[in-house]
């Protein structure tokens, strides 16, 4: 307390401009550390990526040497592998995100039944959520192994032919979606349980008295109330899913034949294996712009949904 009192005392004799300056400094001082780190590590690299994407990259000096305009972009947009990676990423997003949201809210509804073990079950759902994605990819590769994996053994027990999970393009994509869903559904479950617990009780009681059945209550009360949180969960999952890299790298490494080569993995390979830094930078910029625009739209959408309620 003494030090702060001293600091306040010091301020008095100063002129008004000095006080105002000190005030502004103390305001911005809170923002400064984060702003400096983010400017150096986030903003600067983005600008550097943009610069490289418009340059010829010299591997001798390891730097961007000459301005080439849109040439790198033209190369990239001409590359069928880029488009196939974008398509793979889109397929993954379109299947994985809705699946995770629906499963997550469904399971949350199931485990929210009132019984003694509820807290324990909810806590257990934390476990898959903190398994590193790269570990998740690795262990599922073992579990789904065509020859020795336990899933194919179970499929065999049920009387079906074993599935070649990592040899067939469609199945490999299914595997990626399954692994990602396994890793991320618990996250949705935990958010959804909290959301369900926070629903106002009296509306349901009133509806029940009015003779509403289970289905119409779900459809016309629960879901509308949950829409903002579902939208928010979707945005959070979207922000994670567009960064999809670890699981694909560990489970399939983009294979077979690029069937699971999500865009981040493709850019990584192009940059650090093939050393095509300029083209990778151009692709990174394309992905960056697309993600920013879509994220902006989704955020705007959630705001609107929140305001409506």
């Amino acid at each position, binding site marked *: 307390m003494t030090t702060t009192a001293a600091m306040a005392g010091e301020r008095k004799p100063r002129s008004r401009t000095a006080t105002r300056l000190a005030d502004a400094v103390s305001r911005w001082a809170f923002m400064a550390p*984060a702003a400096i780190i983010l400017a150096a590590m986030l903003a600067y*690299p983005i600008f550097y990526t943009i610069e490289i994407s418009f340059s010829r990259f010299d591997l001798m000096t390891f730097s961007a040497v000459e301005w080439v305009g849109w040439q790198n972009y033209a190369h990239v947009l001409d590359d069928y592998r880029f488009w196939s990676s974008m398509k793979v990423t889109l397929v993954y997003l379109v299947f994985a995100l809705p699946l995770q949201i629906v499963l997550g809210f469904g*399971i949350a509804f199931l485990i929210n039944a009132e019984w003694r073990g509820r807290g324990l079950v909810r806590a257990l759902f934390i*476990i898959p959520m903190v398994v590193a994605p*790269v570990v998740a990819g690795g*262990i599922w590769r073992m579990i789904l192994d065509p020859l020795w994996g336990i899933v194919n053994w179970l499929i065999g027990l049920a009387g079906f032919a074993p599935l070649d999970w990592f040899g067939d393009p469609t199945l490999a994509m299914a595997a990626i979606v399954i692994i990602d869903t396994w890793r991320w559904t618990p996250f949705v479950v935990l958010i959804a349980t909290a959301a369900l617990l926070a629903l106002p009780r009296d509306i349901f009681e009133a509806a029940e008295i009015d003779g509403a059945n289970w289905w119409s209550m779900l459809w016309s009360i629960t879901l509308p109330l949950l829409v903002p949180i579902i939208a928010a969960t979707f945005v959070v999952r979207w922000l994670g899913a*567009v960064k999809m890299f670890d699981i694909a790298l560990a489970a399939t490494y983009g294979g077979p034949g690029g069937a699971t080569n999500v865009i981040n993995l493709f850019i990584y390979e192009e940059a650090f294996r093939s050393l095509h830094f300029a083209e990778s930078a151009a692709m990174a910029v394309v992905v*960056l712009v697309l993600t*920013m625009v879509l994220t902006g739209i989704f955020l705007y959408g959630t705001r609107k949904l929140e305001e409506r309620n």
Partner: protein
Amino acid sequence: MSATAVLQAPLRRKSRLGGRVRIAAGLVACLIFLFPVFWMVLSSFKDQRDIFTVPPTLFFTPTLETYFGFMQRADITRRLINTIIVATGSGLLSIAAGAMAGYALARIRLKGAGTIGVLILLSRGVPPIALAVPMFLVARSLGVTDKHITLILAYCTFLIPYVMWLMRGFFLALPRELEESAMIDGCSRFGAFFKIILPISLPGLLSTLIFSMILAWEELLFALVLTNRYASTIPVAIAGIAGDTVNGANWGALTAVGTITVVPVVIFALLVQKWLIQGLADGATKG
């Protein structure tokens, strides 16, 4: 009767059987989600013969062979220490910078704070690969690749925005009178923040810190790009084992190292599960 009762009230009226079915289904779902982790831990105690069998074995003589064998070969211990250093360093740095910035966004009127807020939110959508290429080139020309500090700063790019946003929501929920009265009593802005606000925000800070450390612990892309030997982390080792097509599937190594990676985090997460769940819920709703 808790608030969930609303959802099961109609079910209860129908029959108690409905509730039982629901609980059973929930339990089955939980077990399915836990199984891969259980299977990984179990397999890590098998020797090669027991791993490669059909049908898969549930009962076997447990062995620590893979643990001892693998820990010596791929200097997993050093990677573990690296991962701990980097996770702790980036966690602490981002919580310090992020909490202050979050406070500034929530309480201090700054010109352009709204714009900064939107930028931070958008920055959570920046694909790390767009940062990895320039970071690698810059780090290479500065000669700071394969150093802990490089990785720590790189992790701040996704941790600080996350912490900032979470703590902003947390601070917004605190009553304004707290600092106002402190500042009337002669506290400076810093004094009010460090003496009044931080102590009552400790639970939120701690859960955010833990979550940030877990995120750093698991990170793969930056670690792959910015380190090679000296400062390399555990996820890089796992990616190496999983992607090792020359020696085939070394599942013993994979499960053992996987278990080493996952078990401490699980214990940590379960210890603070209450805060963690709260933090998650806040992160989604306020984020």
